[in-house]
């Protein structure tokens, strides 16, 4: 792995920042709590995880879609005085982008340590899958989409997914294996909302939502909050865990025509096609050196399309890559070992970053028994409750907003 940091090059921030703390609420349906209460719960957990005092955290970032609580309120409930905060609009792909922004504001001297949170009642509050259910009136851009019954993410991405099957012969059974593997991972995750493994037959026989998406090709909707804490690498070793050092970030990189992504280029190609040319050179390594991936699984297809366009396999071979066992625990490069959005819970991407931080630490929270040191003694028996991957040195998170927009991050074990 490349550690040859060229301090005079534009990429000199490589390896200078780290994630030192992660935290989350349970993944719930019916939280019975406000997004404020959940956010403070997750931020407290992240601070406790890092072993950091509130007085040592002075920056806050969050993302939302008018469905959450802003930073000044959340920070007050956890005793943090802010030198910097910003609450941005956004769902999927925000996490990695905000890590990049956190690095930037610390580098600019605006603050020293930033907590990033996402709090959402994604099941009992604002539901992604119910976008536009009310629709009392429409104008502007809705007259080119929603009025044609194209409002939800599933409806808006379906043409991209369908065209990939047409262009490359990708089959429903291949794609179904993303859900199959993620469901097996979730079976080893006490936190997962859906813990029962499913078969490919069950996926392709589940009811059709929007062709080519069956019900089980779509992620779960849950209520939860998640948080991560970022600081400079030279401070990161003052805290409890082995830091997850950040080698590279890409934030909301896009195809041309962000207004209507399918107006440009092959529609079966997604933003990763562009993002990979920032991600890998900045990281100083390539897909072959990655041990664990976190490719966003709002849908089975989004995992496949991104792994393909970031270069984990040849363009067009995504169906083979996600179905041949490579992405399963025990395989060459497991993806979403927590069960991801398809099974663990829906957070707009942050739980996949949290999972990879824990993978890099070697401290996954699975069903393994505690050893003499109080930490879980991992058995690496993936059929019996373990989901810790052996010797994880490098992870890659691939965040998805839509076919035309994505973010990414590479981390290494500190």
């Amino acid at each position, binding site marked *: 792995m490349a550690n040859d940091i060229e301090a005079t090059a534009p990429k000199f921030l490589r390896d200078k920042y780290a994630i030192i703390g992660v935290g989350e609420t349970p993944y719930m349906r019916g939280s019975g709590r406000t997004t404020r209460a959940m956010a403070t719960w997750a931020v407290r957990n992240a601070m406790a995880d890092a072993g950091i005092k509130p007085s040592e955290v002075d920056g806050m970032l969050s993302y939302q879609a008018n469905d959450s609580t802003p930073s000044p309120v959340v920070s007050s409930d956890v005793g943090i005085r802010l030198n910097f905060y910003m609450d941005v609009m956004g769902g999927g792909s925000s996490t990695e982008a905000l890590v990049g922004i956190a690095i930037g504001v610390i580098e600019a001297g605006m603050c020293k340590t930033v907590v990033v949170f996402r709090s959402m009642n994604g099941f009992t509050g604002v539901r992604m899958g119910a976008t536009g*259910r009310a629709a009392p*009136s429409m104008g502007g851009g809705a*007259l*080119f989409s929603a009025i044609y*019954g194209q409002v939800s993410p599933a409806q808006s991405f379906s043409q991209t997914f369908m065209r990939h099957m047409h262009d490359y012969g990708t089959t429903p059974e291949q794609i179904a294996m993303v859900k199959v593997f993620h469901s097996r991972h979730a079976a080893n995750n006490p936190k997962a909302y859906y813990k029962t493994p499913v078969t490919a037959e069950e996926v392709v026989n589940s009811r059709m939502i929007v062709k080519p998406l069956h019900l089980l090709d779509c992620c779960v909707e849950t209520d939860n909050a998640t948080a991560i804490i970022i600081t400079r690498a030279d401070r990161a070793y003052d805290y409890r865990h082995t830091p997850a050092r950040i080698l590279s970030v890409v934030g909301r990189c896009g195809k041309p025509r962000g207004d209507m992504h*399918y107006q*440009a280029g092959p529609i079966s190609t997604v933003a990763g096609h562009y993002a990979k040319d920032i991600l890998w050179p900045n990281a100083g390594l390539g897909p072959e050196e990655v041990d664990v991936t976190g490719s966003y699984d709002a849908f089975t297809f989004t995992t496949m399309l991104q792994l393909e366009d970031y270069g984990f396999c040849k363009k067009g071979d995504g169906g083979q890559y996600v179905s041949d066992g490579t992405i399963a625990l025990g395989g060459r490069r497991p993806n979403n070992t927590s069960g991801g959005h398809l099974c663990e819970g829906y957070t707009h991407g942050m739980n996949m970053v949290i999972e990879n931080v824990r993978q890099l630490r070697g401290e996954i929270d699975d069903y393994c028994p505690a050893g003499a040191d109080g930490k879980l003694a991992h058995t690496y028996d993936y059929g019996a409750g373990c989901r810790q991957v052996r010797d994880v040195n490098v992870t890659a998170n691939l965040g998805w907003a839509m076919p035309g927009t994505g973010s990414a991050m590479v981390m290494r074990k500190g």
Partner: protein
Amino acid sequence: MAALNGEYLGIQLSVSDIDIENLEFFRRCGAHEFSLQRCKGCGLLRYPPTTGCPWCAEAESEWTPVEGRGAVHSYGEVHHAIQPQFRGHLPYQVLLVDLDVQRGIPSEHEALRIVGNLVTPGGELAPPEVVKTCGIGTRVRMVYRDVGEGFALPQWTIDEGASQPTPWRYAQE
């Protein structure tokens, strides 16, 4: 203030008087004429209406009538409606149609990809037996669904006069 008002499937539609690009587009649809902006800089057509050229950033453009014919580039087929207004019309297709005009320009991967539903020649959402005949490659022609005074939505119907390829359809019916 709304300069165009309409109603479709019980949904109220409006185009604001300051939304001048969309206003011109839908007024022309209201006259059953499909027009797109042609850039005065690079000469390329674009969809949907925008305030500048996506290819060269030129602000000036000229509305140009364009023939509403093409082939289905891809589709989604909705079997579980979210909007209650669509529940009586399942399954319905959301088509991306490559216009014949400017296909493969500026690169082989581009086309003017026009959104619309598959409808009957009369403009009603197509029944299930017709939906089953339409897939990638199907030749379609534009029809207009009047939604208000001088206001119509462009839609797509199977082009009965065209020679039809065997369409590519998703494996499971």
